[in-house]
């Protein structure tokens, strides 16, 4: 075997977290190889031209959670990442009304007062309550969760840090924090806001990507997962990556190559090689084998351990925990090339909020029904749609005068039900068309003539996401964001520190803490742990040699 087959670390999967971890390792002087099964890098953070002249952000579509610390550490703007903030948003109702979310504070106050005068203060209370939780949680994103059950000294320090933060909150705020962590987004909003339409607008981010409904406990926390970017008025936190989400991966890939990293595409990891409980390298689908003492898997926990590591190397309890890890596909997507800017008769022409996130919704009850459909294996008859038209502010996305629209759809099942049986294979051409029709019809109702503008549409079901990106069941977060799968429980209790039962094998994807979203936090955190272990090994080795 030649020297060129040996690396200090191999990253399995070139998604944004894998690339992030790879960058950190390469910059620390390690010789790192990234292996990607597709012919492009980026996983679910990609831009592709599927219709000539149009750039699609095929999967993920906005940049809200990307940790600024990572952007700074890796000099991503120097490598081509530019995030354009978008402002505002709106939810349209079928009867022709709407709620506009203005980024201008006064305009927003007036808009809320138009629908419900008392809700102006209710909204203010709500945002402060959520911001308080954000301030509490945000520092945890870039920390490795401590193990409360068998704490090592550093875990004790981390637990003390956590307890101290709780202590500083005081009893009432601690209670409020507990309520926030355990409440449903619907119940939580009911405590602040009266107007159903405003509630529906705000609740959406509590269900995006989850197999839960607006009245399922724990969804208030998911809300926070999406609000994190807004905290402290961080300007530009929410935005489009210029050139689509592939720009994030592109910048990471350039930063990685600039640090001397190597990449293999078009052939994925077939098997993660393990000898005597230690990882030794990877075998690729094309037969190539690469060796390294460190393998960082960007794949989700199920795919990594149920698909690419031989069971004999894993403890039974661990395998059992991986099998029961909940990773439910619940979202679909339609990417659309539009001949012109669609009209929304309810809104004023050229309203600035049309550059933001647009929805069609009526009330929490309607969103809950959408969830009910999914829980019995149907896509929602009246789905929650999160539509954005990045081409309004990003000229690189579509030819002049034309537009690109990304439509995120909640809910779509991984395995649709038919004749009492659920099977991913039920996503046949007829099903995909019917699913797309449900979504397009819904948009058509608030934007008459919309369907006539559609030049090309790419329909993405959970099955597509699984097949193409490798996300098990097409779950966009690589695992449900419920309490039993958060913090020290993510992905498997006892293995929340990015390490696994196989020495040298690490999880760097969003199956690990703090979870999904184009955040780059799992990758950065995991890299920190890998480097910590590498230094320790280094020290041991040196001590060994000295002796």
């Amino acid at each position, binding site marked *: 075997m030649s020297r060129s087959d040996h690396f200090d670390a191999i990253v399995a999967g070139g998604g944004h977290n894998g690339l992030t971890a790879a960058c950190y390792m390469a910059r620390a002087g390690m010789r790192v190889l990234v292996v990607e099964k597709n012919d492009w890098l980026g996983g679910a953070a990609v831009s592709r031209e599927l219709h000539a002249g149009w750039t699609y952000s095929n999967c993920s579509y906005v940049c809200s959670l990307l940790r600024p610390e990572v952007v700074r550490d890796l000099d991503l703007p120097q490598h081509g990442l530019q995030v354009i903030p978008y402002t505002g948003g709106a939810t349209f109702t079928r009867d022709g009304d709407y709620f506009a979310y203005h980024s201008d504070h006064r305009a927003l106050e007036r808009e809320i007062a138009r629908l419900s005068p008392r809700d102006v203060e209710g909204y203010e209370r709500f945002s402060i309550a959520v911001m308080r939780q954000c301030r509490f949680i945000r520092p945890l994103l870039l920390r490795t969760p401590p193990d409360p059950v068998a704490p090592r000294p550093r875990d004790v320090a981390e637990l003390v840090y956590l307890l101290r933060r*709780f*202590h500083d909150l005081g009893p009432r705020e601690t*209670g409020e924090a*507990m309520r926030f962590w355990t409440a449903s987004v619907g119940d939580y909003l009911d*405590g602040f806001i009266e107007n159903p339409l405003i509630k529906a607008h705000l609740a959406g981010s509590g269900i995006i990507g989850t197999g839960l409904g607006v009245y399922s*406990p*724990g969804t208030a926390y998911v809300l926070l997962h999406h609000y994190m970017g807004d905290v402290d008025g961080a300007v530009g936190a929410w935005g489009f990556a210029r050139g689509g989400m592939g720009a994030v991966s592109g910048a990471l890939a350039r930063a990685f190559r600039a640090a001397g990293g190597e990449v293999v595409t078009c052939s994925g990891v077939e098997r993660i090689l393990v000898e005597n409980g230690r990882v030794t390298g990877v075998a690729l689908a094309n037969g190539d084998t690469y060796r390294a003492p460190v393998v960082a898997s960007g794949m989700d926990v199920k795919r990594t351990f149920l698909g690419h590591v031989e069971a004999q190397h894993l403890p039974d309890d661990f395998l059992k925990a991986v099998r029961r890890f909940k990773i439910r596909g619940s979202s679909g997507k339609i990417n659309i090339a539009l001949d012109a800017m669609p009209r929304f008769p309810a809104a004023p022409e050229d309203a600035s909020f049309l550059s933001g996130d647009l929805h069609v919704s009526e009330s929490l009850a309607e969103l809950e029904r959408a969830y009910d459909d999914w829980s019995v294996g149907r896509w929602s008859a009246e789905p929650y749609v999160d539509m954005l038209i990045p081409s309004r502010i990003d000229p690189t996305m579509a030819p002049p005068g034309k537009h690109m629209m990304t439509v995120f759809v909640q809910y779509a099942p991984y395995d649709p039900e038919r004749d009492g049986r659920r099977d991913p294979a039920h996503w046949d051409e007829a099903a995909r068309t019917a699913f797309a029709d449900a979504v397009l019809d819904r948009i058509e109702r608030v934007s008459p003539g919309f369907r006539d503008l559609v030049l090309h549409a790419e329909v993405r079901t959970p099955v597509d996401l699984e097949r193409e990106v490798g996300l098990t069941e097409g779950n966009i977060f690589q695992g449900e964001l*419920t309490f039993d799968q958060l913090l020290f429980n993510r992905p498997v*209790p006892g293995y929340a520190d990015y390490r696994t039962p196989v020495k040298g094998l690490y999880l760097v994807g969003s199956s690990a803490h703090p979870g999904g979203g184009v955040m780059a936090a799992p990758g950065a955190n995991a890299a920190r742990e890998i480097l910590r272990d590498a230094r320790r090994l280094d020290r041991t080795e040196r001590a060994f040699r000295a002796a």
Partner: protein
Amino acid sequence: MAFDHNRRPRAVVIGAGVNGLAAAATLAARGVDVTVVERGRGPGGMMTGAGQGELGHFVWNLHPAALAELGLGAADLGLGAEVATVLLAADGRHVVIEGEAISFADGTPHPDAAAYRALRARLARFAAVLAPLATAAPPRLGSGMLNRAGLSDLAQLARTGLGLRRLPRDARREFLRVLLSNAADLVRDELPDGPLAASLVFDAILGGRAAPGAPGTVLALLWRHAGGGRRRPAGGMAALARRIAGAAEARGVTIRYDATAAGIEVEGDRVRGLRLGSGEVIAAEMVLSSLGAMPTLRLAGPAHFDAEACRRIRGLRCEGTTARLDLRLAEMPRIEGLDGRLAGARLLLAPSVAAIEAACRPVKYGAIPASPVAEVLIEPGDGGAEGPAHLSALVQHVPYAPECGWTEAAREALAAAVIGALGTHMPGLPGLVTESRLATPRDIETMTGAPGGHWHHAELAADQMLTLRPVNGMARYASSLPGLWFCGAGAHPGGDITGLPGRNAALAAAADLGQGVTR
């Protein structure tokens, strides 16, 4: 504080349910002169529909600590043997659980019995960890912990932590994982879906609105699993209520029936007594209310509470979802293969977790469930007024206020749905019904005064438990109005027939009184 040192401090307890009586006995045992005021004609509160019959079927987690305050031992309660549970299966292969024995009705062993027992044992171990939290006010968290009063909280947390430390490491991890997870996944991870899996899930959702897949339902399950098997009191719930009331009276408690609480008298920002519907005022240093938080607030008047407290209480989720259907039957119904085993058994009409999930959905939109799940009890009548047999069903996920209103048609539809579902297992059942009586959540509210007719006075969900029960800032039984205490199921640790909220509240009130007298 101006207490007359020469006379015993006086307390009024509103409501002669198990919690009111436990509170009264606890105070009486500490030298307090206690009067219990009960609107109904007899004791029992929600156990008995305020003396008008009964709502629940069984007793299983009546807590020894509460019984001790009443001077009762488990033997004094007249509880029968642990009842068998019969799980009605869609395919007719009904399952019988008798203690540790789990088999099909025909006697063949159940293939999942071992897995079921293991899961139950695990849940029981976890429940034991939480148990210390139930017997005292929920611990103050945050900066309140680091003062003298907070030390007892730390001790309580330490006991809980110790319980956790006693578990093996893997069990500890598992405990922290499942604590806030959902019952459906927990059970289905171990058992295939079917009646056996559904029976565990049913325990998590009885009385509440949460669906089996709702995170937090495992906490509710653990909370209620601390007790033993289900037992039926001899003479029914009414007899048990009488025994508990008798025990309270033996402690020196005065119980006044047919006495409606009309208002809490307040002077100088302190409770001075309770005004009755008759206009009579019972002077007292403290009032302990076993009513829900909102009715209690209304009795004192919102004027005595800060707006934030009123808002939190307004926001409590307390619309009940459980109805009770009583049927008088011409004769004992029969189920193939279960002859002689139906009478007195606990029948569960919940064929699968999926069926429970489906049954949970309509209530969200104010609709009547078409295929409800239920706990059913059939008892042979004595041939007298009750007729040859009596069937009662606790029907889950019934709306408090259906979109269509509780019209006669709506009531009939619900009764028909239950009878129809039971009829598939008991052929001819519809023809046996000679009389039917339905108590909807709204009827139960009217009967008992429980807000929304809710089983637990307020939804037992993670965001309404522990320091958040009944609401943030009032979880240690003291309302913000000095002298007014919450002692009902709306307070920690919550509903079911445990007596703990009453007993814990009385201990807190007695401690406060002690300070007041010596001050």
